[in-house]
Structure formats: structure tokens, C-alpha cells
């Protein structure tokens, strides 16, 4: 099944989908906030595509629901749905210039350091990382523009990459290492000292969350997992505190060194012509069985060395020198040739977890992958697992 594709022509730097808004960072130094639902509705020119466009771009989590799982066991229904996705994937949904200008009331000057290294959203705030540190602003929707024009700085830590979860920001700070800082806007506003926790001194150029732990990637040193445990309160059910446990280096996880990355239950490490895969299950009491070798994925050499990687439910995305490679959870591989300006997936999102945004020099391609609903979540090699502990809609 091919991915569905929306193309937005233009000169962009980055894009991010968060709570119904598409934030576009333009290379002219502006930010445009687009009503994502309105954009999708505008693109549908035939009612035949209503359902698949909604599931593909607005509410991807819907198809993981228990109710639909039983419906999918009916092959006739399943085939009908797959055919709808297949037909939609043969169309290219191109956003006309007129749409963006008609919805340009939320076009604003980008007051963050630009060009930034990374962006993330957490608790209705946007965080922008750059060499000069991390800046943030509210995007709660209560301001005139998509993002409040009141920009604040949380930390001077030079930032190569950001990832937010558990009310904390993980920061890949290059030669300064891997950090965790709390996301507590009230403390920032009161100018309280922010407790910066340096997790590793290695040169770290990327970071992601692996459940309640943080994985730091490095092109020059060992990749490292800053392993945390959940310390439960004996007296209050469900109340816990994340506590740092230890550093686990890539050689311990993969038995080799090499550029590595990890999101939730999947850890990957690049090797010449292939990628090693390890499944991470932190809830196993025996720490040695936290890591299970799942084998390797072949990678054609023409795509060049690995620059970065990230993982979503639909598969793992590998940025190579000459292409973006998507290894799908059904073991198929898609290659998007060319060097992107930026790209991102949304592994912690509830509605956009099946999307890959690739920014090229003259456009953004927003891709929606819709095969994972039919894949065995426990045994898949590429892509994080949709497992029962996740909060479901049904």
C-alpha cells in the first residue's frame, strides 16, 4: 500500500502538527499557522475519499481501536478499506497557493532564533532549540497569532535536537552532552533556577524518548540510553516518580558501536549496508532481558551514510546522505531520493502518528502510511509497537 501524499509548494524550513494546527516555518523568517482540518476538507474533491482522508490525516489512532480490530477480521470489509486507501494513494493532493494566502491571517514574524535546529511542542507551548539555547512561547490559541509573540528563554544549553515527554525536555547538546530539563512554564515565568540534569558527557547530536528513558545518538561517541525507572508511591496507587538509574551504552545493547537511535520499544544501529534492531522492554525485571535482538534490516549502499533516524508506529525512518528511507512495519521499504531540508514524525501524537513530513527546498510532502493497522504489533521489526498500555479511545 502506497502512502497518501499532500504537497504544499513553497520555501519552508520546518513543519509541525500539533492539536489541530499545522505550523509552517518559512525560510523568509515567518511562521504560518494553518487550520489542519480545514485544509484537509478543502483538499477532498470527491466524497469517496472522505473517510480515508480523515483517518489518514486527521485521526490516525482511530483505526487502532478494539472495535475496528474485530471489523478488520472480516476480509470483505478489510479489502474494501484497503481499496479506498489504494485509490487515494494514486492521487496527489496539492495545496494551491490561494489556500495559504486565504488563511494567512495567522502569518507572523518568526521571533525565535532562525534557522533553528529543532522544534517540539508540550503542554500548549512550543520549544525551539538552537545554538543559543532553548526558547519557548505559548500556542494555547488564546493569542492573535498561532504562536504568542512573547518569546522566552528557558536555558542557554546549545541545542541540536529536542524531545519532550513526562513534563521534561530531552536536549541533545552536541559536545556539551545529553540533558534533561523540566517543562514548568510557571517556574520559568517566576525566573526560578531551572534544574538542568546532565545525563551524559558524550557528544550527542540527537535524542528521543524510549518510554520514560532517553536515548542520545552520537556520530562521534557511543550512543547512550539514560535509563530511568518508575519509582511507585507505596501509599498512592498509580503515583510514581521517574528516577535516573544508569547509563547504558550502545555496545551493551547492540554488542557493536555505530550511530544508533531509539524510540519507545525499538532501538536501531546503523552498520555498513544494514541496520541492527533491538526490542526494548524496560518492564522486564531482569535487566539483561530488557533488550531482545530482532536481527537486521538490509540497506542499499547508494543511499549513503546514515545522518539520523526516528521511529513511529508505521516504521522506522532513516535519513541517509542521498535519500530518506522508510522501513515499514510490514517489512516493505520506501525510498525518497534527494536531500531533505528537514523531516519529522510524530511518535507521541494521538492523531498524527502515521505521518511523515519531508521538507524539500521547494515544497513539503506530508505522507500518511496506513498499513500498520493490519500488522502484528508484537512481532514487528520496524516501527514502535501499538500495545495495550497505551490509552485507547474505546
Amino acid at each position, binding site marked *: 500500500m502506497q502512502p497518501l501524499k499532500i504537497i504544499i509548494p513553497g520555501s519552508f524550513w520546518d513543519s509541525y502538527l500539533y492539536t489541530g494546527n499545522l505550523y509552517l516555518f518559512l525560510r523568509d523568517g515567518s511562521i504560518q499557522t494553518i487550520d489542519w482540518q480545514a485544509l484537509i476538507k478543502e483538499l477532498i474533491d470527491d466524497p469517496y475519499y472522505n473517510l480515508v482522508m480523515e483517518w489518514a490525516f486527521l485521526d490516525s489512532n482511530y483505526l487502532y481501536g478494539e472495535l475496528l480490530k474485530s471489523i478488520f477480521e472480516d476480509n470483505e470489509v478489510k479489502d474494501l478499506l484497503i481499496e479506498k486507501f489504494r485509490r487515494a494513494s494514486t492521487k496527489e493532493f496539492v495545496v494551491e497557493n490561494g489556500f495559504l494566502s486565504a488563511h494567512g491571517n495567522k502569518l507572523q514574524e518568526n521571533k525565535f532564533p532562525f*534557522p533553528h*535546529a529543532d522544534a517540539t511542542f508540550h503542554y500548549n507551548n512550543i520549544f525551539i532549540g538552537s*545554538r543559543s539555547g532553548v526558547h519557548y512561547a505559548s500556542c494555547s490559541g488564546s493569542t492573535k497569532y498561532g504562536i504568542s509573540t512573547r518569546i522566552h528563554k528557558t536555558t542557554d544549553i546549545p541545542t541540536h*535536537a529536542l524531545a519532550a515527554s513526562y513534563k521534561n525536555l530531552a536536549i541533545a547538546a*552536541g*559536545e556539551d552532552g545529553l540533558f534533561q530539563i523540566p517543562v514548568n512554564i510557571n517556574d520559568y515565568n517566576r525566573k526560578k533556577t531551572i534544574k538542568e540534569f546532565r545525563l551524559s558527557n558524550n557528544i550527542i*547530536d*540527537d535524542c528521543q524518548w524510549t518510554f520514560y528513558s532517553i536515548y542520545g545518538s552520537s556520530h562521534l561517541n557511543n550512543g547512550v540510553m539514560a535509563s530511568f525507572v518508575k519509582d511507585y508511591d507505596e501509599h498512592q496507587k498509580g503515583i510514581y516518580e521517574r528516577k535516573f538509574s544508569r547509563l547504558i551504552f550502545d555496545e551493551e545493547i547492540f554488542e557493536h558501536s555505530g550511530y544508533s537511535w531509539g524510540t519507545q520499544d525499538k532501538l536501531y544501529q546503523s552498520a555498513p549496508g544494514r541496520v541492527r534492531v533491538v526490542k526494548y522492554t524496560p518492564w522486564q525485571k531482569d535487566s539483561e532481558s530488557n533488550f531482545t535482538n530482532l536481527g537486521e534490516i538490509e540497506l542499499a549502499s547508494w543511499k549513503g551514510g546514515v545522518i539520523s533516524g526516528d521511529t513511529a508506529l508505521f516504521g522506522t525512518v532513516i535519513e541517509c546522505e542521498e535519500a530518506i528511507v522508510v522501513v515499514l512495519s510490514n517489512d516493505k521499504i520506501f525510498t525518497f531520493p534527494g536531500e*531533505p531540508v528537514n523531516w519529522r514524525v510524530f511518535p507521541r501524537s494521538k492523531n498524527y502518528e502515521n505521518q511523515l513530513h519531508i521538507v524539500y527546498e521547494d515544497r513539503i510532502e506530508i505522507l500518511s502510511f496506513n498499513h500498520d493497522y493490519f500488522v502484528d504489533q508484537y512481532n514487528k521489526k520496524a516501527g514502535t509497537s501499538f500495545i495495550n498500555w497505551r490509552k485507547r479511545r474505546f
Partner: protein
Amino acid sequence: MVNIIPHEIDKNTKYIIHPDHRNNTRDKSQWTISPDVEIGVFTYSLNNSWLIKQDGWGLYLNGNTVLILGHSSDNQRSLFIARFIDSTNKQEWHGYPADHVRRNSDIPAVELLQTWMTNGYLRPAKVSKIVRGKPCNL
């Protein structure tokens, strides 16, 4: 003791060819361009206001095409941005090939990166890798 002779660029500005970046000194990135070209790269930066206070940046240009000017200390990465420093604050500069993967301070100021991107010296995809501290080939 190596005798380092400053080159006079103009009446206010001097430039030193630092031997550490030409003699394979440990942990020092190395120029692959000649000393004369190094001075030329610095002069171009001076003339284009790419020197900001005590921090300066440069590119080895052939027209609008950026060329390699050095390699990393471990010889694993080709480098194409020059970093210039006026450490004494007396307009006496020296420089070396910037290694943005190894050192945060070797990532140029965002304002300058935007200028280079707008002028077409560096494509946006290259600038993105530089600000993210990722390996980047020309």
C-alpha cells in the same frame, strides 16, 4: 618555538597562519588549502562583514560554489567553513577549518547562516545539517 609572523591585511587588521592547523597537531582540524588561499578566505570574510566582534566565519568560494578547505582532526570529515578568532581583541586574527559535528562553537551564528542560505552559497539542506550538528558533505 615557532616564529609566527602576522600578515597585514589592511592598516587595522592582521592575520596569523597558525601552524597547529597545518602540522597534524593532535585534536586540531587541518587546512587543505594553501596559506595564501587561507589569507584570501579571511580577506573575503573581512570585506563581506562576516567577522562579528571577535568571531568570524568564512567560505572558500569559486564564484557561488563552496569548496572544501580542510578536514577534521581525525581526518574523517571534509570541512568547508572557516572559523576566525581575534583572541586578543586587537584585530589580530587566526583561523581554522570549523568542525560543526565536534564543536558547538564551530557552528556559525544563525544570522550568517541565513545570509549564506539566502545568497545561495549553502543550500538549505546543508544549513539544516550544520545547525543540527550532523555530518554534512558538499
